[in-house]
């Protein structure tokens, strides 16, 4: 009588491999291998070192940005926060504050800036894009104002060296360890905690999340604080890497971060994405740029190619989702014929309010593999696995 349901409708390999994130990982691997084979000097420790060193701040800030964007918010003030913390660090140090203390202070400033964003978004109820465009200008203004036209150099060598050391001749900068620690932390938070499940629920349906006891405002504020804090860390990193503090550091970084996060499979409408996809997205942009640069391609052309890739991935995901929804609606209408199904068909397909969504269908936090959406050879597979009307098995 009572029936036991299987946990999953698809076998493990399909759930693991047929995801948008996996498509980005695959693309990353392909581009890397092709570059190693076809681009002179690419398969070199120096390339790896430069690539990681240049992308480190983007990699780190992409982590909290991924979480912020999964709730459906966005934070475009991160680049300015990098600039603000950079010049504040320089100012404090030049005024004789010990470097360690100055670093702690700028991280707190980063957290405070993030709190301000989160507070304005959740308590005042303003859209995060509007708020953070405002704070982007505000933070940048302060950053430039703090140091004026001057710049601070001469940071303690012990600290600046930290950004340049590599791990025992592997070509991997030692700062990678810091990134891996952050990655572990954010992956755990997003995919393996109740808090993380709440992040997805907020992104998909704030009201239902609130009805389920998720403290939506608190969650969103915490994420903005994390974004601010990690941006502060990014500011410290840039300062040490360049050995100078200037107010214009991190200009445009926010767009690089957001582009990578979206490329990694996170929907700007929220609710969809996984942290490994985001890491792959950042690395893909980095690897592509490095390879093209070695091939002698100019920076403008690199930008064009990166932009094209981003648009292509987003369009493909949206197209797949559209086809899948059409199919699911048709199936549901035909199969069940219930009032609800027809309502969906006549009024709006399920989730049409999110039709322009970039990602695949539902988010599968702890098991990111469940969300489909990937390159075209897999399209048929995805379609066939998407909207099955799910009659109970007869056993």
């Amino acid at each position, binding site marked *: 009588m009572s029936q036991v349901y299987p946990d999953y409708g698809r076998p493990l390999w399909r759930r693991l491999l047929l995801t948008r994130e996996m498509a980005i990982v695959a693309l990353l691997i392909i581009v890397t291998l092709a570059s190693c084979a076809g681009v002179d000097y690419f398969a070199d420790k120096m390339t790896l070192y430069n690539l990681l060193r240049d992308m480190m701040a983007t990699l780190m800030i992409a982590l909290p940005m991924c979480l912020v964007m999964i709730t459906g918010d966005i934070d475009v003030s991160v680049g300015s926060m990098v600039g603000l913390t950079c010049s504040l660090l320089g100012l404090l140090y030049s005024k004789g504050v010990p470097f360690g203390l100055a670093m702690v202070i700028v991280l707190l400033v980063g957290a405070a800036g993030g709190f301000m964003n989160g507070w304005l978004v959740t308590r005042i109820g303003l859209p995060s894009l509007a708020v953070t465009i405002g704070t982007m200008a505000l933070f940048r203004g302060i950053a430039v104002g703090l140091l004026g036209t001057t710049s601070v150099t001469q940071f303690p060598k012990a600290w600046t060296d930290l950004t340049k050391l590599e791990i025992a001749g592997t070509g991997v900068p030692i700062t990678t360890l810091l990134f891996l620690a952050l990655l572990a932390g954010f992956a755990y938070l997003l995919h393996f905690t109740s808090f993380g499940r709440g992040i997805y629920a907020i992104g998909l349906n704030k009201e239902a999340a609130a009805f389920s006891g998720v403290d939506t405002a608190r969650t969103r504020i915490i994420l903005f604080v994390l974004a601010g804090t990690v941006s502060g860390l990014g500011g410290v990193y840039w300062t040490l890497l360049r050995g100078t503090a200037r107010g214009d550091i991190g200009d445009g970084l926010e767009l690089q971060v957001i582009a990578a996060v979206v490329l990694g499979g996170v929907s700007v409408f929220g609710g969809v994405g996984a942290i490994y996809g985001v890491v792959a997205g950042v690395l893909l942009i980095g690897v592509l740029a490095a390879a093209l640069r070695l091939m002698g391609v100019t920076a403008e052309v690199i930008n064009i190619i990166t932009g094209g890739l981003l648009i292509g991935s987003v369009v493909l995901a949206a197209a797949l989702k559209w086809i899948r929804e059409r199919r699911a609606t048709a199936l549901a209408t035909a199969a069940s014929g219930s009032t609800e199904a027809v309502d969906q068909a006549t009024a709006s397909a399920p989730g049409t309010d999110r039709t322009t969504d970039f990602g695949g269908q539902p988010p599968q*936090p702890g098991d990111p593999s469940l969300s489909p959406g990937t390159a075209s050879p897999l399209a048929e597979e995805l379609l066939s696995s998407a909207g099955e009307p799910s009659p109970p098995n007869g056993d």
Partner: protein
Amino acid sequence: MNTPGPTLLLRDVSKHFGAVAALRDGRLTLEPGSIHALVGENGAGKSTLIKIVAGVIQRDAGVFELEGRPVGFKTTAESKAAGIAVIYQEPTLFPDLSVTENVFMGRQPVGRLGRIDRAGMRSQVIELLDRLGVSIDPDRPAQGLSIADQQIIEIAKAISLDAKAVLMDEPTAALSGVEVDRLFAVARGLRDEGRALAFISHRFDEVFALCDTITVMRDGSYISTQPIAGTSAPEIVRLMVGRDVKELFPKVEAPIGQTRLKVEGLNSPGVFADIDFEVKAGEIVALAGLVGAGRSEVARAIFGVDPYTTGQVLVDGRPLTPGSPKAAIKAGIALVPEDRRQQGLVMEETIATNVTDVIRPKLTRGSLITRRRENAAAGVWAEALEVKCAALDAVAGTLSGGNQQKVVLAKWLASQPKILIIDEPTRGIDVGTKSEVHRRMSELAGQGIAILMISSELPEVLGMADRVLVMREGRLTAEFPRAQATPDAVMFAATHAKQEAA
């Protein structure tokens, strides 16, 4: 012109949504120069009928004539062009545009070079509003206008289109007494101009004050049409309800224990006032009333989704922190909300995720949560409620309405509540699942859970409840023990102000 036939005529109109018949033999005849009342319980098919006339949906079969010519509208634009105007309870104006721009939205008069004739528009609107006898600044934005004024603008729009038939779907639900009077004056004016009007309302005093003819619907079928002069409110109520309800509802008597939920003097200005009641263990208390009476708002306030200004909620004698669903869940309250799609479920998530949404904090080890533990917990409840699905990772949005409701129930039962608030437990679900949901509720009461059920379906209220509370316009107006809760009594309390107050 000598023998004008009916403006609008619908006969044997049916509409099915899959296997569910929303309308079986809808009938409505609107005569020019007449105001026709259309009454029936929720789900009787009134709105479906109106939607067919408006061109929102299309009929499956039946006759639909406008001034003697057969018509069938595929879009609302077609029905508008043919001279039909529908005024809804919640007008749909563009908040940032001016009154004038709203009236002429989509068909602005243009002068030379396609330039919009603003002065012409403005003077026409002034004339229109003048004719309606209202003073609304034509240049002010629609935002901030009262619902009543917004409806007047919709009506102005209808007149400017020279609508032959004006259908008003519960236009007075959100209006105050004075506003209702003004709307009625406008409606009578339109009638005297020879237009045909239909008026849907649950308030009998209004129906009797305004209309000359009345059509009663029940369960998607036409029941009767008669002149208002020859009938009375009790008779209409009997026609609306008239059916035996008991056997559908497997109500099992459960031993009633001590008070679980106590609500004391709850107030939220403009929403509800002075709400006092209690629900005991094992008891099913129904909160009856019309849509918009403030019942869901009370439930939301108790659960902490909405704030309240004064009063308190006690669970087992202990006061509950207001404004925190988290605290309510912790205290053992579960709320199955009215709007499954928006509030009950995350439609894009899987069954497993949805079922564990409330209990998740309890499933963690340290702070770690794994998909495996979630699936294990969700499986138990999905199976217990017999959610029809192939696997637990089926997406909630792909399930039928009844199955979605089971997922919502599973989600809340998983939290093992002491108090279950369930808002419209069977709205939009098929008959079979309906009785299953009722059976579950009975079982839960038998297990000692205190149940507060909000329902707009009278048979459900009378069939399931140990006690019936009736709300009208934000206040509790009556309380009936099961034995005394008759359809007429409940309907009367829901539609009339307290006798003592009168």
